[in-house]
C-alpha cells in the first residue's frame, strides 16, 4: 500500500516536471515529437532506476556509516555522470538498434536535474531500497507521461496561429502551466 502511494505520488500528484519543475530542459527541448518523447522517457526511467539503486547503496553503505553525508552532492553527481557513460557504453555493445533510438538522449540526461533530484529526494525522505526503486519508477513514468502529453499538444500547436514572439519556448511554458493545472485534479487520490 505504502509503495502504491509512493508510485502514484511521484508519477501523478507530485509529478516531477509539472509540480517540482525537475527536468524542464529536456521537457522543453525534446517534447516536440511524440517518438522522441517516448525514447527520452524510456531512457530516463532506465537511468533513474539504476541511479536509485546505486545512490541508495552509496548513501547508506558508505556516506552515512562513515559520517560523510556532507559529500552527498559531489558523490551523487559523479555517480550519475559515470552511470550515464556506463549505460551508454553497455547499450552500444548490446544493441545498435536501441543505441540508435536512445543514444543521443543519454548525454542530455547527465545534466537533467530530475535524476539528481530523485537521488536527493530519496535520501532526504530516508526511503528504503525498495521504496527508492518504486519512487524512481513512479517519477520516471510521470516524466515520460508529461513529456508525451506535451509532445502531442506541441504537434498540434505547430498548426496554430501563435503570435510571433510567443512561438517556441514561451507558448510551451504556458501550455505546461495549463497541464500543471489539470494535473492538480489527481491530488485527492492518495
Amino acid at each position, binding site marked *: 500500500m505504502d509503495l502504491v*502511494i509512493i508510485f502514484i505520488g511521484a508519477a501523478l500528484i*507530485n509529478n516531477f516536471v509539472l509540480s517540482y519543475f525537475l527536468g524542464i530542459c529536456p521537457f522543453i527541448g525534446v517534447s516536440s515529437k511524440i517518438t522522441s518523447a517516448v525514447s527520452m522517457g524510456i531512457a530516463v526511467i532506465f537511468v533513474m532506476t539504476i541511479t536509485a539503486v546505486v545512490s541508495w547503496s552509496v548513501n547508506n553503505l558508505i556516506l552515512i556509516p562513515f559520517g560523510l553525508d556532507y559529500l552527498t552532492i559531489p558523490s551523487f553527481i559523479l555517480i550519475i555522470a559515470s552511470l550515464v557513460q556506463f549505460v551508454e557504453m553497455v547499450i552500444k555493445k548490446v544493441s545498435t538498434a536501441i543505441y540508435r533510438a536512445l543514444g543521443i538522449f543519454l548525454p542530455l540526461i547527465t545534466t537533467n536535474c530530475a535524476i539528481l533530484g530523485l537521488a536527493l529526494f530519496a535520501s532526504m525522505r530516508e526511503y528504503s531500497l525498495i521504496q527508492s526503486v518504486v519512487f524512481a519508477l513512479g517519477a520516471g513514468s510521470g516524466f515520460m507521461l508529461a513529456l508525451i502529453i506535451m509532445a502531442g499538444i506541441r504537434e498540434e500547436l505547430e498548426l496554430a496561429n501563435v503570435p510571433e514572439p510567443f512561438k517556441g519556448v514561451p507558448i510551451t511554458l504556458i501550455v505546461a502551466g495549463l497541464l500543471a493545472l489539470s494535473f*492538480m485534479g489527481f491530488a485527492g487520490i492518495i
Partner: protein
Amino acid sequence: MKKTIHIISVLTLTATISALTLASVNNWAKPLIEENAIKAISEAIFQVQPSAKSYEKIPLDELKAFEVFDENKNSIGYAVVHQGNGFQGTIKLIFGIDKNLERITSIEILEQVETPGLGSLITEENYKNQFRSLSVNPVINLIKGKSKTADNQVKAITGATISSRAVVNIVNDAIRILRKYSKEEK
C-alpha cells in the same frame, strides 16, 4: 602514459582539495545545524505547551513525543510530533496534550504542501483554534457543515475536507500510540 598520469593526478588533486574543503566547512557548520534543529523543536514544544518550562524525550519508536514539566519539575503533559498523508503530500504537525491524555492544549502545523488557499488553511488560526482545549474522548471527530454538538468535534474547512480530516487523523493516531505507551508505563 604521461598523459594518463596527468589526467589521474589532476582529478585526484581536485577531489582531495574538494573533500578537505568540505570537511572543514562541515566541521564549522555541523554544530550550528544541530543547534538550529534543537532550537526549532524546543520553540515548537513551548508554543503548544505554553506553561511548560522544560521537556524530556520519551523513548518511543513509532512516535516523536516529549513529556513536558512546569517550573517545579512536575509533569504537566506531552508534546507530540507526528506526520501522515494529507491531500498532496505529508503533513507534519506538533500538538500538546494534558497529563491524562484528555484535552489538547494547542496545535501547530510544522510542514505541509496542501493546495494554497484551500488545504493550506489548516495553518490558519481559524482552524487551529478549534483544537484549543479540545476533548479527545474517545477520539476527535470531524464534522462537515453542521454546528458543533459535542466538545470532541472539529469543523472541516469548506472545500478542504481531506486536509482537515488528515490533521484530525494524524492527531488521533498519535494519541492512540501515546495511550498504549502510558498504559504500559502504569
